[in-house]
């Protein structure tokens, strides 16, 4: 007894250990279903779990082995004890006290035994040698699909066996003759078999590890009982299924951002393991959009599609997806009541079609993203007649949460992608516009250099200014734009270095075009850096300043001319100074000295002195003429100072003087003009002497020279000088008033500079008049100066002498 009690205790311990191990496994599971784990984490966890499970399994195997051994001993022992007790009862019948005592012990043992067995989670049945069930605990009744052990024990074997189908774990039918109890009835111990019991009514499935152990009589030859052990692993299997399903679903959901595609895959995964039907709908405004529906049978899919086309789901429906979308709450109908279908059916035809689907159990879970319901997943059981449990609901929600997360991620990613695409498009557009703008600039060469100074871009302006086509110059070093000396001296590289250091380099200088011609350019080099401040290259803007340069050069030339003119004027002033003062002063001294000598000679030989005086006089004239030429050509013209005066008196004086000077000549003076006017008397005296002197010099010496003063119009007079003799040659006639034009025929007779007529012309023009010449062999030569009388002109102060 004592030994027996010890064994019993050990058995209880073993059961508790087993139980704890199971619980430990169960504790680990919730971790796995906890949402929002990355795949890697989940995989790592799964790996850990698998290891843990493997360990637990090994442990269980070991324990099971020892348990079986112990259990066997226990039951064998138990059976032996039972027989012993029975035997003892018979032996000790006579000893009532002992008998009573022993009966009490047995009753107590039975009670204890029964309590223990009923409390054990493992299904245990005992069959007698005929195969009849003689014992079953509660777990056994439940596993086989009965409400209580009594129910099970009163049922016939056929009934029990007809209650469920026995299948292998993979779903294939398990042959009943291979059931472990059959072998045990023949005295053979079996190994533990994994079996799936599908209750025929509910099609609920339970997975168990089944083992049967024979119990022999004392001889050990005859099997008296068979003890069956059912260790139920339904929960574990379901968890396993769901876990692996979830893993595959998450894998599927993460496989692509095309969530409509991945949701379809998930729906397909769900059937038929988790549902006969699986549909996924997403909210689309006020309506719903079916993104996935799955069933193993394509014909059924087509059937539903047709059904839903004919009877579209009511958006205001009180059950189903619209309701889930409205409330965000799941729906769970373990057993779909007939009334529900009746209520859902629009008409008899509809009901008939719905009935055809054989829907029996239903779970609808919301797809919730950031507290917003975006859709629903519907699972339904139909022809398989399986029923959903709360466990399935939990699982369905876990799956929906993962799917919702995946949809949200995909949508966020899509939005980000779209935003990025839009931004990129906009940036590209901006850049493109900017590029086009730069490229179309014609007046500036705008191009980029890489950090080493190689040309990277080339606009039309660059092409026009420098002459290179883009394909000719891109990739070339920019030093080729510089004249040799600059390129050789490393000047170019220095410019880049300065630009990189200072942030800008500006320069003006000569650059070389493709054809080798040079142009004056303004250049700005700006370094281009990226966001990190790394040098990416340089922007170079070159402007052709040749036009400006030309303008500047023109200005400089103008300035030079002005300076030259100034210098010329300066020179003229200096020259006039020399002629007017420096030459005439000594000439004055010579003439005065010679005059003095002549006076002192007192009528004696004065020929030499006369020659000095004559030459001095000629020189005086020449100086005067040079002075006039200088004034007219270099110093802005001969100036005249008009004063009111009598022109005829002036001419009379001159004619008188000339008559004295040329006593052998006939000089006639005919005054028929208006003599009063405003004149520069001295200058007009010069005109008169020049013209008469000219006539005397070049005209026929035997004939008269005639001076006439005639009216010419109302306000002018004409002073003419006529002479006979050779006419002026026709070559000379048009240019006779230009300086240094001499009548070459009479060159040897000329003692002047050839400036007389030029100066005469200048003086007449300065008076606002004109001079003309007519010269023929018949009529002789006539110079006519027409002079305005200018009577209204201001009267200058008269010189006066104090009397």
């Amino acid at each position, binding site marked *: 007894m004592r030994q027996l009690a010890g064994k019993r205790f050990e058995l209880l311990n073993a059961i508790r250990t087993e139980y704890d191990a199971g619980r430990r496994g169960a504790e680990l599971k919730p971790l796995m279903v906890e949402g929002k784990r990355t795949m890697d984490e989940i995989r790592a966890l799964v790996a850990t779990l698998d290891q843990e499970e493997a360990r637990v399994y090994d442990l269980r195997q070991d324990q099971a082995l020892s348990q079986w051994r112990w259990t066997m001993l226990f039951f064998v022992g138990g059976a032996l004890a039972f027989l012993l007790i029975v035997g003892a009862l018979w032996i000790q019948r006579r000893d009532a006290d002992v008998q009573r005592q022993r009966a009490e012990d047995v009753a107590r043992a039975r009670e204890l035994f029964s309590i223990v067995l009923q409390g054990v989670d493992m299904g245990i049945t005992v069959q007698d040698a005929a195969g009849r069930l003689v014992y079953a605990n509660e777990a056994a009744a439940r596993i086989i699909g009965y409400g209580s052990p009594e129910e099970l024990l009163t049922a016939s074997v056929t009934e029990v066996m007809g209650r469920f189908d026995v299948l292998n774990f993979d779903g294939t039918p398990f042959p009943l003759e291979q059931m472990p109890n059959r072998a045990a009835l023949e005295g053979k111990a079996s190994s533990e078999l994994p079996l799936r019991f599908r209750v025929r009514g509910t099609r609920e499935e339970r997975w168990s590890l089944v083992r049967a152990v024979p119990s022999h009589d004392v001889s050990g030859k005859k099997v008296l009982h068979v003890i069956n052990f059912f260790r139920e692993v339904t929960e574990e299997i379901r968890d396993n299924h769901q876990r692996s399903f979830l893993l595959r679903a998450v894998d599927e959901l993460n496989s692509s951002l095309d969530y409509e595609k991945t949701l379809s895959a998930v729906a397909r995964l769900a059937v038929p393991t988790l549902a006969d039907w699986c549909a996924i709908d997403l909210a689309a405004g006020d309506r719903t959009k079916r993104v996935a529906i799955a069933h193993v049978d394509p014909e059924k899919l087509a059937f539903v599609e047709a059904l839903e086309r004919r009877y579209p789901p009511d958006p205001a429906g009180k059950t189903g997806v619209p309701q889930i979308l409205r409330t965000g709450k799941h729906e769970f109908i373990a057993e779909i009541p007939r009334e529900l279908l009746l209520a859902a059916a629009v008409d008899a035809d509809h009901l008939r079609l719905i009935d055809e689907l054989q829907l029996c159990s239903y779970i609808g879970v919301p797809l919730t993203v950031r507290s917003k319901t975006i859709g629903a997943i519907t699972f339904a059981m139909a022809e398989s007649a399986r029923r959903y449990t709360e466990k399935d609901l939990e699982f369905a929600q876990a799956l929906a949460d993962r799917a919702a997360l995946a949809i949200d991620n995909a949508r966020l990613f899509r939005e980000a992608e779209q935003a990025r695409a839009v931004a990129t498009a906009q940036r590209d557009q901006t850049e493109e516009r900017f590029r086009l703008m730069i490229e179309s600039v014609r007046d500036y060469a705008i191009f980029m250099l890489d950090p080493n100074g190689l040309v990277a871009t080339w606009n039309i302006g660059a092409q026009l200014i420098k002459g290179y086509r883009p394909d000719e110059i891109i990739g070339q070093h920019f030093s080729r734009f510089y004249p040799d000396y600059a390129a050789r001296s490393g000047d170019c590289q220095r410019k880049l270095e300065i630009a990189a250091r200072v942030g800008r380099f500006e320069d003006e200088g000569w650059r070389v075009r493709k054809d080798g011609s040079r142009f004056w350019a303004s250049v700005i080099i700006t370094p281009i850096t990226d966001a990190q401040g790394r040098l990416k290259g340089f922007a170079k803007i070159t402007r052709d300043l040749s036009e400006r340069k030309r303008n500047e050069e023109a200005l400089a030339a103008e300035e030079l001319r002005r300076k030259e003119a100034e210098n010329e004027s300066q020179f003229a002033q200096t020259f006039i100074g020399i002629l007017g003062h420096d030459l005439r002063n000594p000439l004055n001294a010579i003439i005065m000295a010679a005059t003095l000598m002549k006076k002192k000679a007192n009528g004696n030989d004065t020929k030499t002195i006369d020659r000095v005086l004559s030459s001095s006089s000629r020189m005086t004239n020449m100086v005067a003429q040079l002075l006039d030429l200088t004034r007219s050509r270099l110093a802005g013209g001969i100036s005249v100072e008009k004063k009111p005066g009598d022109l005829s008196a002036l001419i009379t004086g001159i004619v008188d003087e000339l008559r004295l000077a040329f006593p052998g000549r006939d000089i006639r003076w005919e005054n028929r003009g208006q003599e009063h006017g405003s004149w520069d008397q001295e200058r007009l005296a010069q005109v008169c002497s020049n013209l008469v002197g000219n006539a005397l010099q070049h005209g026929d010496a035997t004939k008269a020279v005639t001076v006439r003063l005639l009216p010419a119009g109302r306000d002018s007079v004409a002073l003419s000088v006529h002479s006979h003799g050779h006419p002026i040659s026709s070559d000379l006639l048009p240019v006779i008033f230009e300086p240094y034009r001499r009548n070459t025929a009479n060159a040897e007779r000329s003692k002047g500079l050839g400036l007389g007529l030029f100066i005469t012309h200048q003086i007449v023009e300065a008076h606002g008049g004109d001079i003309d010449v007519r010269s023929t062999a018949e009529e002789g030569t006539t110079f006519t100066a027409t002079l305005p009388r200018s009577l209204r002109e201001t009267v200058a102060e008269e010189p006066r*002498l104090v009397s």
Partner: protein
Amino acid sequence: MTMKPDSVVLVVEDEEDSRESLRELLELEGYMVQTAVNGKEALERLDALEPCVMLLDLCMPVMDGWQMLDQLRSDGRLGRFNIVITTSAAYKAPPGHLVFEKPLDLNKLMRAVAAVC
């Protein structure tokens, strides 16, 4: 050729050759001739000499003819003296004066001098 001892002609001329020739010519005409080599000297002696005419060169060192004329004008003496400007740059001569351009036309100059002395 008549002597005119009371009539002093003042020749203001920096160039010696011209000055001395002119002086001798005027003396041959019978005038008392005094000379000054610049405007400053002439100004100093003008009141004392009381010349009947002053033949004044313009371009001279120390004080030129223009400065001297300005001085005479500013001290009110300009109207008291007959002044004939003898210059090689007649165009630069101040207006309102009788001007003889060098080389001097001696006949005309003598006539002008004779008119006032």
